[in-house]
């Protein structure tokens, strides 16, 4: 029978070793295409697993959990988001002077009507 500190060390070592092996096996710290594939695999696997876990918890405890909204998509395209963001910012900047004139005119008309 092992003493308690040795047991604790073995448990901690096995947890840490298992984490390191999982990282090595899934190639998470390797080339970028492997990391991207791992992220896509996680995106496919995690939401159904969470849904099944919530269903299991509902069955075991008898609670009725509300329908959770769909999880957000991780795999968005940075280039498309960046380009659309730049276009929106530039169009807002180009329309800003005319909008400012229009709003100030409307505000001035409102004040004149209130003063009358």
């Amino acid at each position, binding site marked *: 029978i092992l003493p308690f500190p040795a047991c604790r060390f073995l448990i*901690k*070592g096995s*947890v*840490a070793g298992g*984490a*390191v092996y999982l*990282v090595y096996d899934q190639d*998470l*710290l390797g*080339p*970028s*295409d492997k*990391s*991207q594939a*791992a*992220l896509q695999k996680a995106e496919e696997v995690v939401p159904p697993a969470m849904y099944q876990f919530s269903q299991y918890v509902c069955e075991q405890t008898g609670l009725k959990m509300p329908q959770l909204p769909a999880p957000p998509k*991780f*795999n968005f*395209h*940075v*280039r*498309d988001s960046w380009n659309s963001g730049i276009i929106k910012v530039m169009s807002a900047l180009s329309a800003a002077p005319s909008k400012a004139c229009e709003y100030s005119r409307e505000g001035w008309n409102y004040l004149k009507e209130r003063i009358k």
Partner: protein
Amino acid sequence: MSDSELGRKWDRCMADTVVKIGTGFGLGLVFSLTFFKRRMWPLAFGSGMGLGMAYSNCQHDFQAPYLLHGKYVKVRTE
């Protein structure tokens, strides 16, 4: 490098950064809880390592088309 290929490289770079920082943070968390008495430095160390590895991968990915690979050829002079 075409625009679509550049966009794909940026997407890959962002995904790689997220995965590596998360992995480094996770490993740092595990080691902090198991061996280092819940200190903060393993998390910072792991996250920093992940960020550095992702930056190195991205740099290599973007520079790869422009790198020249050569080899030494011995010339026999008689």
